[in-house]
């Protein structure tokens, strides 16, 4: 049958995509194994123990915090009625718009001993000298845990709320008719049911924490990412960086394994039928205000304070220097490279999602999952893994071109930003394919069959049926990929061409130098872009498991 041959072509294309995504990881393994053996004892003695310890403490702390804040606020806004509940329901998502390096950037300046916060506090308390009164230094492990926790908790909040609202509500109704009070409803029914969703969300948050470069570095926490980066940048040792990266990858894999284990019995959660929304329980005035305060605190810490700071600082800078040329150029760079990567990633994501639909076999599924693995690979690891193949490729093309045409192409990929786009596509492909897959799942398979029986080829069905019907999901996927690219820092730092600055790298540079002022405008622009998908998320439906979430969840590779 024709569909068999066509399916083969689609599968081959997917295999190629998967190979390109996996290339950095394989190259990394190769490099680490053949790498200079003399470095290993040094890494093992001085670098790895601290990287491992710091990373694990950070992950544990952030994990506990995001689960507590995320599921706690999700339960409050779902099950209780209190002042501001509706607004809080969606503003609790806002910290998603603030990348971890920006929140650290903002708080470093705010919390500085002579910064606005501590100066104000001293005045209030009547101290004149910073030496007499000083808050604990934020540049510490606990500072890093708190900051990351309060921007990353929405990863738990969103799926937990969706589950509480949709799937668990019928069961909670049932448990109430059986005499269960609020305590039993939450701990006996809602929490066990939400466990898989919370596990997914928490693992996403932890991936972000592991992936973070700015916050950890600024706050003096030597995570894997920071160690890899400094091994490469300061010691110029690719083998050493590759070796740490490989260990980090092992940590990521165990994180994924842990997440799989935590949601090992997920099937039943998905089986519950969608019931009426949970009718929230009215709280008394005092308790209601307490609930309002509890839900407002994460928004305040994770969004309002840093965003407010950025607005004030950006306004100052704007009044002082206007819109500098350099910001415009960086914005242009950022948008251009992100747009290119978005288009490529979306096209490939469509290919993956459609192939999975066309060829419904475990093999196709495995192939698509492999191609989605990039999302789990931290940006630094991906970049380190790409460095060697890119250098080899550029050198190969250059020498071939020189010998054939007597024309040097120089660093074709690395120098042009193509390498950066490649890294973006590899990393965010899963965001797109997950979202598009979720969108396709609403198109009944009978439609494909009908179109095929009317004589349309697989390609034509994709073009005429799935492209138009999947448009909302595709558009949402594009938006998400675009914003993710704009915010990306670790891979950008390592792979950008010489003298090519994006908003994120500019901000990083300013923060590294301790000159915060002119970074504020760049940071504000990134946060504003980050708000777009959140507005979409809030509009798509209060509580429904939305495309980004589905995308992110689907992005977790099946191990």
């Amino acid at each position, binding site marked *: 049958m024709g569909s068999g041959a066509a399916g083969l072509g689609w599968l081959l294309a997917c295999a190629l995509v998967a190979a390109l995504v996996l290339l950095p990881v394989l190259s990394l393994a190769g490099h680490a194994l053949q790498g200079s053996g003399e470095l290993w004892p040094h890494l093992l003695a001085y670098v790895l123990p601290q990287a491992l310890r710091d990373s694990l403490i950070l992950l544990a702390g952030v994990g506990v915090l995001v689960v507590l804040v995320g599921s706690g606020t999700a339960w409050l806004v779902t099950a209780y009625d209190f002042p501001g509940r509706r607004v809080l329901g969606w503003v609790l998502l806002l910290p998603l718009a603030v990348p971890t390096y920006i929140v650290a950037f903002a708080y470093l300046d705010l919390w500085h001993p002579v910064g606005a916060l501590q100066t104000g506090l001293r005045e209030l308390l009547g101290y004149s000298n910073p030496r007499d009164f000083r808050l604990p230094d934020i540049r510490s492990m606990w500072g890093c845990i708190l900051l990351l926790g309060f921007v990353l908790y929405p990863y738990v909040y969103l799926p937990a709320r969706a589950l509480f609202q949709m799937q668990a509500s019928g069961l909670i109704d049932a448990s109430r008719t059986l005499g269960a009070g609020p305590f039993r409803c939450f701990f006996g029914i809602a929490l066990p049911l939400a466990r898989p969703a919370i596990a997914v969300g928490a693992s996403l948050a932890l991936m972000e924490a592991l992936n973070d470069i700015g916050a950890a570095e600024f706050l003096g926490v030597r995570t894997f990412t920071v160690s890899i980066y400094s091994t490469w940048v300061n010691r110029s040792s690719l083998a050493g960086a590759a070796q740490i990266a490989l260990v980090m990858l092992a940590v990521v894999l165990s994180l994924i394994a842990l997440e799989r284990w935590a949601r090992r019995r997920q099937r039943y959660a998905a089986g519950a039928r969608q019931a009426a929304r949970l*009718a929230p329980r009215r709280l008394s005035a005092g308790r209601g205000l307490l609930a309002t305060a509890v839900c407002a605190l994460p928004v305040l810490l994770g969004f309002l304070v840093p965003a407010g700071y950025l607005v004030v600082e950006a306004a100052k800078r704007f009044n002082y220097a206007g819109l500098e040329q350099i910001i415009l150029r960086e914005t242009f760079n950022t948008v251009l490279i992100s747009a290119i990567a978005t288009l490529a990633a979306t096209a490939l994501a469509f290919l993956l999602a459609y192939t999975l639909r066309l060829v419904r076999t475990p093999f196709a599924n495995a192939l698509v999952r492999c191609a989605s693995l990039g999302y789990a690979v931290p940006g630094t690891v991906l970049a380190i893994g790409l460095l060697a193949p890119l250098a080899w490729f550029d050198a190969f093309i250059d020498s071939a071109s020189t010998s054939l045409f007597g024309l040097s192409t120089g660093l074709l990929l690395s120098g042009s930003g193509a390498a950066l786009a490649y890294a973006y596509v590899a990393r965010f492909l899963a965001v797109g394919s997950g979202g598009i897959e979720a969108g396709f799942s609403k198109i009944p398979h009978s439609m494909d069959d009908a179109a095929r029986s009317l004589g349309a080829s697989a390609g034509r069905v994709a073009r005429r049926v799935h492209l138009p019907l999947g448009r909302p999901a595709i558009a949402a996927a594009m938006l998400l990929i675009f914003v993710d690219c704009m915010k990306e820092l670790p891979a950008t730092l390592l792979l950008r061409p010489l003298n090519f600055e994006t908003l994120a790298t500019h901000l990083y540079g300013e923060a590294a130098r301790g000159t915060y002022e002119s970074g504020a405008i760049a940071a504000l622009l990134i946060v504003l872009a980050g708000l777009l998908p959140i507005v979409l998320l809030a509009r798509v439906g209060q509580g429904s498991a939305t495309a980004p979430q589905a995308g992110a969840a689907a992005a977790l590779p099946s191990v």
Partner: protein
Amino acid sequence: MRFPVMKMPDLPFSSHPAVGVAVGASAVAGGHRLAADGLWHSFGAAGVLRDVSLSLAPGEILCLVGPSGCGKSTLLRLLAGLERVQRGSIAVDGEVIADARRHVLPEKRGIGMVFQDFALFPHLSLLDNVAFGLASLPAAQRRARALEMLARVGLGERAQDAPHALSGGQQQRVALARALAPQPRLMLLDEPFSNLDVRLRHHLRAETRQLLKEGGVASVMVTHDPDEAMFMADRIALMRAGRILQAGSPAELYHHPATPFAAEFFGEVNRYRGKVSGGQVATPLGGIAAPGLAEGAHAEVLLRPEAIHPVAAGTPGAIAAKVVEAHMLGACSLLTLELPDADGGLVRWQAQMPSAACPTGIEQMQLGLYPDGVFVFPLELAA
């Protein structure tokens, strides 16, 4: 069959220690009564319930029927306490449990509920599901009671299984056992059979009715299926657009519908329009008495297919009709008849009669009419 019921004086919802004897509904001692009075409810601008009142005697099974969106499920959720009362009141045994100001929480009401999707807790075994509502009992008694309830619905062997391992019918039984286990004061059932296939449904509704009657607990069941309502109910309340149109025994609703809607809801009807003349409406099957209708008023006559029956030739008042189509359905046959109208036209009516009365190939038939299957309404009611 009678099930022995253990004496459980300290069951959470049981306010009457003597409930442990299985008895028929009519003889329930100390059963509970429910009264809902003047309930109005709306979601946003949309009115869902308009002035609904109902009462339930001890041990009685009331079925709320009506097309989807008529407000019956909302009414059930109000009774359970899952929705707050906006206007009107709900009382159990004369004590108000919900009105515009008061809202006894669902977990404090002692009202059991079986949900449409059964709502079994997927992470708990059957035993733990059924034991869930028995939290106030010591562990040993809780277990014993849960096992007893599971045994009563024939699933005692599967106490440790997870809900998803069960078939739909078994899940329904567990849901019923779970709701009954704490001996609720009242039971609410929200379309409990709608997720099951037809054969199973017939079987389970008999079983469910028996269990409810044995427990002697007054129950309100929501369904959109008129057959199910007539089978299950002691009394039926027919709802439409947020109001109770008519309430009464199944026979009353079937034989004395108050509106054309009620007549049509519970069975097929042939419709005929005419004017009242001499206290009667003339139809192709003779004059039908139209009591209470003014002379000359427009009326609509509804005739149930089974009210039309064959008579021997020569019977006074018999009317000849042409058999256009005949379908043998087993014991009954469904016929399409053609009858001459008063205006000289022809009308086609459906008739249902024992197959023995209409041999195959029959072309002509003498017909009579049973009066209890014929209803006359003023035409404006029909609109």
